[in-house]
């Protein structure tokens, strides 16, 4: 606010009354900035951004022999022969300049290939090629040439950019333009959380457009916040606490945010970025790029960069072949499983780990180097998983030596690297780890071979992390031959749900880690028989779950209350591909994305399965709710609110009613207007029809034939009637 005070002072000196000046009306002469450089970040970057010069397919081959005119063609033949093997040289694509005085070549040539890929390949293959002892090729891309020529002989330390704090402190910026910018600096990135109607935002991508909406269930429609065509070149992603929206571009990634609209806050240069990932506390952004190798036998090259989100500084980059980044996990893009770096739980963003062959590399963000400068050696480790809240790493090692060495699941404390607990497992075929969201439990689903080794059966090892010595419990299903189709922990809760059994009608079971009588043992709550479900979606607040039948089941939805063990509603969103709870657990979005050709769009449901509204969009690619940071309320306070919900909800119910009254009023008005407009048309048509009666009669050879219009007449009589008004108290209202 220093700047604002400054301005006031200056204005008083000059005898200007601030309140009378309309800032928008002031126009600066074009091109004149009054000596004040714009501090718009975008302007700076625009100048620096690299442009494709369009010469990417040209290489420069240096250190060729200098030859006379007679030998020119021979040399040309030799060069052509070398490079024709590596790619298609364009017609007249080889140019070897000749010194006009001596008629000798200058010892270099330019070669134009059909594609940049071929040029790259040729550069890689022939750089350092020995034509003979004294002629070793020096090959560069034409695009790089300018850059290489401009390298200064002496190294200059980079100039430090002055730190720009959130409040503009620069005294010089007391001009109008900059003043406005000052206000921008104080922008509240969390403003969306203070929405009066407590709505949530969601982003969708369809066609070329990316749009952010408020989910407004009262009005039964999404309310637009921001829309931009070609906002991103592949996809968008919210940061884990919802502060930023990241977009991907050819040049790199960018994050967007702000109080009222979305402005670009920072850019991260990483050309052809494919994937991004945030640290859980959104301090760091990891970007990933992989390049297809020029030779298909080589592994593709991977480059990963870690940026500081706020300053845009690159903290560390990792380069290597895809093999080094692709151990374990389901394959992501081009071999690597994403995210390559897994962040430790909690919001302090202290550690991240990478799994590679026989090693787990854990880095810490203070120095961006390995903890103790050493990776953890674990032979044959295939999977690692962080606790969502603590810096505890769980890992799984499969059987080795044909069963002589048992498989192992273990927990490692970071940064001490102490093994907290481990369990050996026998005749294991596969293993999957599921952490409960508050890090209290870890479930390890273990698929074991039967004695004949012909089939497998599944069971669970349940770790109670927060209890002393971390007790482990083994859980087998009632019918232990059942195949497990899905597993999910209740967020923040003590229960979990399992879909097990045979398709097409598997069973769904609920278990709890805690019962009133029995705190230390897992017990079954219920089994629902023969459900059309293959996926589980717990509400982020727990208690409610959607048993969903996606894919083969065409989008069956069952909204289930686990506290009461009853079905609240069943519904269908035909062909639904995605189910997404909003961060508060009040609403659910189901979507059909463009994997299907038809019915693209999304539907919003209330938590108990009421259909609120549908939105159809062709070529629908993505929907993502804007996450919310964790609540500041204590657990006790939350409980208190849940108990006295009636007291708190009164205000909102009144609001709801007002809105719905207003809406129906608007609706009536709209209908009335439409009807009136239509009446006008009909009147006009009738009179014209009457006027033309004679002419028509003539066309029909005098036949009087306009009877048909009077034969039938529809009369509309409207009346409204209140049949019954009942009031009932709904238990589950939030």
């Amino acid at each position, binding site marked *: 606010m220093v700047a604002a005070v400054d301005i006031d002072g200056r204005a008083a000196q000059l005898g200007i009354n601030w309140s009378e000046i309309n800032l928008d009306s002031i126009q600066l002469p074009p091109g004149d900035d009054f000596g004040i450089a714009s501090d718009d970040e975008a302007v700076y970057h625009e100048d620096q951004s690299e442009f494709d010069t369009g010469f990417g397919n040209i290489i420069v081959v240096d250190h060729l022999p200098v030859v006379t005119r007679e030998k020119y063609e021979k040399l040309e033949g030799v060069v052509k022969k070398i490079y024709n093997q590596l790619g298609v040289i364009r017609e007249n694509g080889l140019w070897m300049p000749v010194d006009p005085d001596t008629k000798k070549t200058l010892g270099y040539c330019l070669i134009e290939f059909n594609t940049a890929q071929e040029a790259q390949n040729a550069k890689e293959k022939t750089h350092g090629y020995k034509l003979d002892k004294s002629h070793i090729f020096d090959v560069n891309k034409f695009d790089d040439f300018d850059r290489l020529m401009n390298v200064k002989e002496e190294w200059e330390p980079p100039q430090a950019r002055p730190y720009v704090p959130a409040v503009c402190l620069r005294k010089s910026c007391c001009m109008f333009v900059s003043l406005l910018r000052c206000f921008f600096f104080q922008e509240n990135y969390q403003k969306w959380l203070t929405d009066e109607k407590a709505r949530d935002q969601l982003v969708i991508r369809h066609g070329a457009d990316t749009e952010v909406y408020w989910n407004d269930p009262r009005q*039964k429609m999404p309310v637009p916040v921001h829309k931009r065509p070609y906002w991103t070149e592949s996809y968008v992603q919210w940061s884990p606490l919802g502060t930023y929206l990241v977009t991907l571009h050819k040049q790199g990634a960018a994050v967007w945010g702000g109080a009222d609209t979305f402005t670009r806050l920072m850019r991260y240069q990483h050309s052809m970025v494919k994937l991004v990932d945030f640290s859980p506390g959104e301090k760091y952004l990891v970007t990933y790029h992989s390049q297809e190798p020029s030779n298909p036998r080589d592994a593709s090259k991977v480059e990963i960069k870690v940026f500081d989100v706020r300053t845009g500084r690159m903290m560390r980059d990792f380069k290597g072949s895809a093999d080094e980044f692709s151990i374990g996990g389901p394959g992501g893009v081009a071999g690597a499983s994403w995210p390559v770096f897994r962040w430790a739980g909690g919001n302090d963003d202290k550690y991240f780990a990478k799994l590679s062959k026989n090693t787990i590399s854990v880095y810490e963000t203070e120095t961006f180097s390995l903890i103790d400068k050493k990776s953890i050696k674990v032979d044959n480790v295939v999977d690692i998983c962080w606790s969502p809240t603590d810096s505890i790493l769980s890992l799984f090692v499969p059987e080795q030596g044909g069963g002589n060495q048992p498989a192992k699941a273990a927990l490692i404390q970071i940064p001490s690297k102490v093994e907290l607990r481990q369990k050996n497992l026998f005749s294991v075929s596969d293993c999957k780890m599921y952490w409960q969201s508050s890090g209290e439990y870890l479930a390890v689903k273990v698929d074991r071979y039967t004695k004949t080794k012909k089939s497998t059966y599944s069971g669970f090892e349940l770790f109670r992390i927060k209890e002393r010595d971390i007790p482990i419990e083994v859980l087998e299903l009632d019918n232990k031959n059942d195949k497990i189709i899905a597993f999910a922990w209740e967020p923040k809760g003590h229960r979990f749900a399992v879909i097990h059994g045979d398709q097409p009608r598997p069973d769904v079971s609920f278990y709890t880690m805690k019962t009133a009588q029995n705190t230390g043992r897992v017990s079954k709550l219920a089994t629902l028989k023969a459900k059309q479900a293959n996926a589980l979606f717990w509400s982020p607040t727990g208690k409610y779950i959607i048993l969903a039948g996606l894919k083969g089941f*065409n989008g069956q939805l069952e909204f289930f209350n686990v506290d009461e063990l009853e079905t609240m509603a069943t519904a269908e969103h*035909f*062909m639904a591909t995605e189910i997404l709870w909003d961060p508060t657990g009040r609403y659910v979005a189901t979507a059909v994305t463009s994997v*299907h*050709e*038809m*019915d693209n769009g999304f539907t919003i449901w209330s938590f108990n399965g009421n*259909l*609120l*509204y*549908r939105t*159809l969009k062709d070529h629908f690619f993505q929907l993502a709710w804007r996450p919310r940071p964790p609540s500041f309320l204590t657990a006790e306070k939350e409980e208190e609110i849940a108990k006295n919900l009636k007291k708190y909800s009164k205000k909102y119910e009144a609001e709801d009613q007002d809105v719905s009254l207003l809406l129906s009023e608007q*609706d009536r008005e709209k*209908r009335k207007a*439409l*009807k009136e407009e*239509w009446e006008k*048309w009909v009147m006009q*048509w009738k009179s*014209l*029809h009457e006027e*033309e009666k004679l*002419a*028509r009669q003539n*066309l*029909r*050879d005098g036949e009087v*034939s306009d009877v*048909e*219009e009077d034969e*039938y007449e*529809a009369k509309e009589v*409207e009346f409204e009637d209140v049949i019954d008004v009942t009031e009932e108290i709904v238990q589950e209202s939030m």
Partner: protein
Amino acid sequence: MPLRVCSFSFSRPSSPSSTVISIDSDTKMRPILMKGHERPLTFLRYNRDGDLLFSCAKDHTPTLWYADNGERLGTYRGHNGAVWCCDVSRDSSRLITGSADQTAKLWDVQSGQELFTFKFGSPTRSVDFAVGDHLAVITTDPFMERTSAIHVKRIAEDPQDQVADSVLVLQSPEGRKRINRAVWGPLNQTIVSGGEDAVIRIWDSETGKLLKESDGEVGHKKPITSLCKAADDSHFITGSLDKTAKLWDMRTLTLIKTYSTVVPVNAVTMSPLLNHVVLGGGQDASAVTTTDHRAGKFEAKFYDKILQEEIGGVKGHFGPINALAFNPDGRSFSSGGEDGYVRLHHLDSDYFNIKI
């Protein structure tokens, strides 16, 4: 001709809007299933009295049915290609048909006799009699080096005097794009055409001058597949692959209403009795998933003409709907599908009591 009856319901749209009042899905309203064509249906047309229904299909024989009970009266044999369109004169004596065999034929409705053949160098797509039945407008497709065209023919009282010459030939500025439908405007003063270029044009039927073109901003974005005019020639509705149908004023070409649906629209019609419009369509036959009949959305959808809101749907076809026609009395309608069936629906009292 065996008549088959199939179970049917007038289903409520799955719209969340509570203002939709349910139409009882009892079994009172059974459609009559008319199986007389071996290939997909292309066009349906009632005569003025509403007692006869003409159907055209990709097989070569237009067929005549009783509009009340769906009994087949007869066929018109003579075409040698898919029949795209037909029209019947006001006194139900003459039938004109347009076919892919590059001809349009005049028929005696009662005897099924072929009266005259107009020969063109390219397939004929649509035909329409003018008020008074002395003129007919015929559109031809672009074919080989020929461009699409609209021909106006004089129809003689006595077939003996019929001549093949066109009174007027109109060339579309988008000659390589097909014109899917052309109809007469009020008092035969204009011709209204719509086709693959998504533009609706109004021509002067005397001079052949292009009078109006629909605005690209508000107009259709994809090919116009069908066009249906009101009984009094005051307005007309167009259906398009852009998944909308639009209602236009026939004299000024003002866009009045837009009806949006989820599937490409192949056929449209309007109720002459109530303020309802009906949209038919479905995914292109090649894009239909084979897993589930629901995926195709082969429904005839009813919309409120004024409020532009969906009020109901009639399911039953197992292929896209290619043709729709309302009986002039407004009490029944029929639909023709890619599946080769004509479904004749007599609307029941529930339908007439819909309130939204």
